[in-house]
């Protein structure tokens, strides 16, 4: 079980939430090249270590938030409302 700290609801079992993956920055659709757009859509860093992820609190406040999670240990820190 991973305990994830929702900024609105507090600590929750991860089964109460939905992970939405790494946070990536969206390029400008008007100027982005095909390569940049493909990288935005499909490519992820997937590090063994700390990564900033978006989560959705589906059973509680029904809000998206970001949190840093260590993919090797499942420790979490710095939960912030989106």
């Amino acid at each position, binding site marked *: 079980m991973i305990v994830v700290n929702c900024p*609105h*609801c507090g600590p929750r079992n991860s*089964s*109460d939430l939905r992970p939405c993956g790494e946070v990536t920055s969206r390029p400008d659709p008007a100027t982005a090249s095909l390569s940049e757009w493909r990288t935005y859509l499909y490519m992820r860093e997937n590090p063994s270590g700390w990564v900033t992820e978006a989560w959705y609190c589906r*059973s*509680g*406040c*029904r809000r998206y938030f970001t949190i840093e999670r260590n993919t090797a240990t499942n420790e979490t820190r710095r939960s912030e409302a989106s």
Partner: protein
Amino acid sequence: MPDIEFKSPIAHGPVSAPDGSVSLEDETSTTKVVVRAATGTAAAADLGVPYGQSRLRADGTLVCGTRPGEWTLFAAAGRATEVAASVDTDGFVNVVDVTHGRAMMRVSGPKATAMLAKVCDIDLTDDMAPDGAVFSGSVAKVTCDLLRSDWRGEVSYLISCERSFGNYLFATLADASTEFGAELPTGLDIH
């Protein structure tokens, strides 16, 4: 909002233990009005309850901060039109009567917390969920809104969920109550 005939999705009467340690009853007929209001609107200021808390208004309506920017108003049965009309809809405000769309039940008694803890992963201790606390989470794998609303001097919770899950949730909570001596009504199918 026309008044239409009310019919509860819960097919069984109250369940209780002979010693009163836990009881479960259908409260679906309670008026339930959901309000979503943007920050800065008159409705948000009037309702005035932050997420996770509740307060009783002078007109007998219980205002619950069910989510950030969202409130659920509970009142006696048949007051939906009146309660909805009491909300100032000026600005980005949405008011919906969900009385018929959500099932609701009350769990009360000294063993209510222990019974609920069997099927709910939220910390229900007095520090985290005192009287008046509002929270949402999984109860028997059904996403529910919960309100700690102590009643007649006893610990009590109001639990509401989507209407279609109401009968299942009532039966599952009745099943969980049997450990504390609750007697199931004839015909209640729990498996």
